[in-house]
């Protein structure tokens, strides 16, 4: 077992030290995870970060589920990019998800590429990276792996499970599979099933990767050359879906990039082209192409209604979890309509649900940005749940 490493890092404002523990859970091959595909899969390593302290009765744990290209570095510097964690606005000392009060756990998902077992990990049967021998996984499989981690940490019930986009899908899956283990659930900018349009965009991304001659049917790990171009194109196409027309227009308009006039070439004349190329190339440095294929597939397969006899409400029948569903006005990838479907299903079983739509023109990405109204919502919801759960401000049971 790899040792846990705890380090002190300045929080986003640079003012407070934030204790981060980087840890791993090794699930042995003789205790495999039963995947939705029927495969018994193991061994599995789960790389995860924790922040804050677990209280004595283990009632103050918040699980953060990351999105497609996110990772466990939710509130600390990402080691590969050196950039601040992806949710430092929301998670940290004194933040809406307050690491002074709560024990925050953020694992890298199954199939990921930052420490948790994924297609780039070594297949013990061959001694080589899995590549396409990695099993096709689902959102439910990711949640099963997380449940093993929560078991390992000795936590019966999570105080809250929070996540946006694909993270929100995991939140819904948690709330459906483990009704008694989730006190509060916050699915953000997400949907109970992946829409045809979203599957279509993902397919474009996957085909871009697979069309790259360096992809080698997923067997590119030994050659030292990775399918950079394919993955970069996939990221560029996906990135457009994370923004909105208004946001693109405001940010770039038809502005030219470092030049006075068109070059009459296929250079990145326009700022928006330059921006997307940059997004594509920096993404490739931190992400594995096969992971991208597997994780997008898992999202495409997600359909919480289909898992419950085509009635979404069945997924939540008997739930006592408190839900806070959040959407953003300009998000066309996971539009408010799809959040409302979740709310309707929750109402149909008389669940305790709040639903807010936050006004923003940032598109789907709004859930990662500095949106004060969003933070006020999360702070209020989590705070009131803590009160009802009997958690005092020190994170201890009252």
């Amino acid at each position, binding site marked *: 077992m790899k040792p846990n490493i705890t380090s002190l890092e300045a929080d986003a404002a640079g003012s407070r030290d934030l204790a981060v523990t980087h840890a791993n859970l090794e699930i042995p091959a003789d205790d495999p995870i039963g995947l939705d595909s029927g495969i018994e899969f193991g061994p599995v390593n789960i790389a995860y970060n924790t922040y804050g302290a677990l209280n004595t009765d283990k009632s103050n744990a918040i699980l953060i589920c990351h999105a497609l290209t996110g990772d466990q570095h939710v509130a600390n510097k990402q080691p590969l990019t050196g950039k601040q964690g992806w949710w430092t606005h929301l998670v940290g000392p004194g933040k809406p998800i307050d690491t002074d009060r709560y024990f925050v756990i953020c694992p890298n998902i199954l199939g990921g590429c930052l420490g948790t077992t994924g297609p780039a990990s070594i297949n013990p049967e061959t001694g080589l990276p899995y590549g396409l021998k990695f099993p096709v996984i689902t959102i439910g499989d990711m949640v099963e792996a997380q449940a093993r981690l929560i078991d390992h940490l000795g936590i019966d019930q999570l105080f809250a499970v929070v996540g946006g986009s694909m993270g929100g899908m995991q939140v819904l899956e948690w709330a459906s599979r483990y009704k008694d283990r989730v006190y509060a659930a916050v699915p953000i900018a997400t949907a109970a099933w992946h829409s045809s349009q979203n599957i279509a965009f993902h397919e474009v991304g996957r085909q871009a990767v697979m069309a790259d001659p360096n992809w080698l049917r997923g067997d590119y790990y030994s050659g030292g050359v990775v399918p950079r171009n394919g993955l970069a194109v996939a990221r560029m196409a996906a990135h457009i879906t994370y923004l909105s027309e208004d946001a693109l227009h405001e940010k770039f308009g038809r502005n030219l990039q470092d030049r006075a006039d068109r070059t009459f070439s296929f250079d990145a004349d326009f700022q928006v082209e330059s921006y997307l190329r940059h997004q594509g190339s920096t993404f490739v440095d931190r992400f594995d192409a096969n992971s991208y294929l597997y994780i997008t597939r898992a999202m495409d397969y997600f359909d919480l209604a289909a898992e419950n006899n085509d009635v979404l409400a069945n997924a939540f029948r008997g739930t006592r979890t*408190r839900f*806070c*569903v959040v959407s953003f006005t300009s998000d066309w990838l996971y539009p408010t309509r799809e959040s409302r479907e979740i*709310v*309707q299903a929750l*109402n*149909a*079983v*008389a669940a*305790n*649900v*709040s*639903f*807010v*739509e*936050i*006004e923003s023109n940032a598109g789907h990405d709004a859930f990662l940005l500095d949106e004060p*109204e969003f933070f*006020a*919502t999360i*702070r*209020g*919801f989590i*705070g*009131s749940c803590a*009160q009802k759960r009997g958690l005092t401000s020190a994170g201890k049971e009252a």
Partner: protein
Amino acid sequence: MLGKAEVGQQQRGRVDHLLIAEMVAPGSRVLDVGCGDGELLQLLADTKAVDGRGVELSREKVNACVARGLSVIQGDADDDLDDYPDQAFDYAILSLTIQATQRPRRVLENLLRIGRRAIVSFPNFAHWRIRAEILFNGRMPRSDSLPEAWYNSPNSHLCTIRDFIELCEQLDVVVEEAVAFNSSGRRLPIERSLSLQNILGEKAVFKLRQRQPVSSE
């Protein structure tokens, strides 16, 4: 700064809320449809320890409610009540909102289906000031409880106490309690004289239930 009319409205809003709170049993499950900024839900949580939920049309108000820890969804009485199961709540409350719904009868039926009891308050359009305004000035009445001009009022289905009782009879609903109150917030129990209350009552609060409640699981 609050104008004089708004202050008056707030105070009377509280009278309406206090009367509703009196009708609610402690520890019950409550749905407040058109909950605004959550004032009534907060009052019921503080004084009656209810398990409360709200539905509100205005996005800003919903967000404010959730930020203060109330369970509220963005939605409206006409469209979103159909989703709720029968008898999901002890009380379904519609406070000064029915006159702004598109299909008040349908909304009322839904409230009676969702809640074991429905509590409805509304401004009485037969109040003497309103009658006088039409009779003597020949204009659409405006008051603290009906502040908007006719062309931008959200109130498309105003009614009187007598009208409301008639609808209850049509729906074969049991009126368990009915209280009218005047513009200074004084209670006028409706049983005494309907005609008088219909003149003196500025607003009314009704507690209703279905004659034969839907059997619950």
